[in-house]
């Protein structure tokens, strides 16, 4: 009787040891998985979900040469649609581009900042060249004939409305989408960064895509 009790006790003690080891191993592997789990990048802008291929197009760059957008594959592209007559929001965004580029340091070599005109009637390549030179000579500026630019704006879902302003020397102004589109090195549309977000936010989201 006494012998049997001792045996049972010893058996249950072994079971407890094994159970504890199982629990510890389970916890360790859970922690391991948690630390090495595939993480979805977290963006400060709005994630495009699901990502989709950024439409390709060919326009004219600020040197007057044809430029095919898909030739930027392999780089992260920050794409902004604006116009050179714009003295406030567009320079503000281009200044953010400039600061983001500085924040990215050597990583900036793998990023292309692009300005596409929503006002091709006014925005000649020379005009865009002068405009962009206020900010950073590495920026790419694209324009073309209105018939070439309009389909690009439509493909990207960009609002671009011409507004004639009475009593203003401006002639006309453009209402236009103020967000920045981030495209990853595979040419997939990934993030929308909104007007008012800082250069730090832009640099942060670009880093997530590099």
């Amino acid at each position, binding site marked *: 009787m006494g012998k049997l009790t001792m045996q049972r006790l010893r058996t249950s003690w072994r079971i407890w040891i094994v159970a504890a080891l199982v629990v510890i191993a389970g916890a360790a592997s859970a922690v391991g998985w948690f630390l090495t789990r595939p993480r979805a990048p977290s963006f400060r802008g709005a994630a495009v979900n699901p990502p989709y291929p950024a439409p390709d197009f060919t326009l004219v760059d600020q040197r007057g040469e044809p430029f095919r957008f898909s030739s930027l594959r392999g780089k992260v592209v920050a794409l902004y649609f604006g116009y050179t007559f*714009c003295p*406030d929001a*567009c320079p*503000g965004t281009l*200044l953010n581009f400039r600061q983001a580029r500085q924040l990215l340091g050597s990583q900036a070599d793998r990023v292309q900042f692009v300005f596409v005109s929503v006002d091709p009637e006014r925005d000649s390549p020379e005009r865009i060249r002068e405009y962009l030179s*206020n900010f950073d000579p590495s920026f790419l500026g694209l324009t073309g004939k209105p018939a070439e630019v309009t389909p690009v704006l439509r493909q990207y879902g960009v609002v671009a409305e011409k507004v004639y302003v009475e009593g203003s*020397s401006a002639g006309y102004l453009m209402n236009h989408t103020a*967000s920045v589109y981030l495209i990853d090195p595979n040419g997939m549309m990934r993030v929308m960064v909104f007007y008012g977000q800082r250069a730090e936010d832009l640099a942060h989201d670009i880093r997530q895509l590099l």
Partner: protein
Amino acid sequence: MAERLRSRLLGRSGELRRPAGAGLVAGAALVAAAFVWALWTGLAGAAAPAKAPGAAQAPPQGIRVEDPWARPAKAMGGHADASMGMTSAIFLTLVNDSGTTRYLVAAKSDVADAVELHETRIVDNVMKMQPVARIEVPAKGRAQLKPGGYHIMLLGLRRTLAQGDRFQATLVFDDGSELAVDVPVEMR
């Protein structure tokens, strides 16, 4: 200036004459004295900018400019009119120390073919810019002209505004008064 001051004082005491009583008369005298003092100190404070070129009119009372700056922009020669030239914008804060609401109604500068008051608004991620007739500077308050809001738009730049440059602009208020501003060109 003396005539203007006299008419203002008469106007003020005229308003106060209606209710009778010695206390009110004394009060009126006090208000008048305070007004004269405010006017005198205001004028003394604004004496320097009044001499600046471009501001031919009297400066506004109790209005001052804080932190003016303009965006750098390159001028492009040979533009047919302001609508085909390059643009820039002046930003600043207007501080109104007086008890009267003032309105900024126009601005002038030799650096551009046209100068207009504009407002940027972001509606559903769409940037909209439009001219405004005036910008309110509330009594004892301030009006901020800043990126993404009100700005003084320079249309058809006659010269390049490079970082570190300075240029003159004149602000025009609803009472006809004018204030000269020395604007630095800054990348910010």
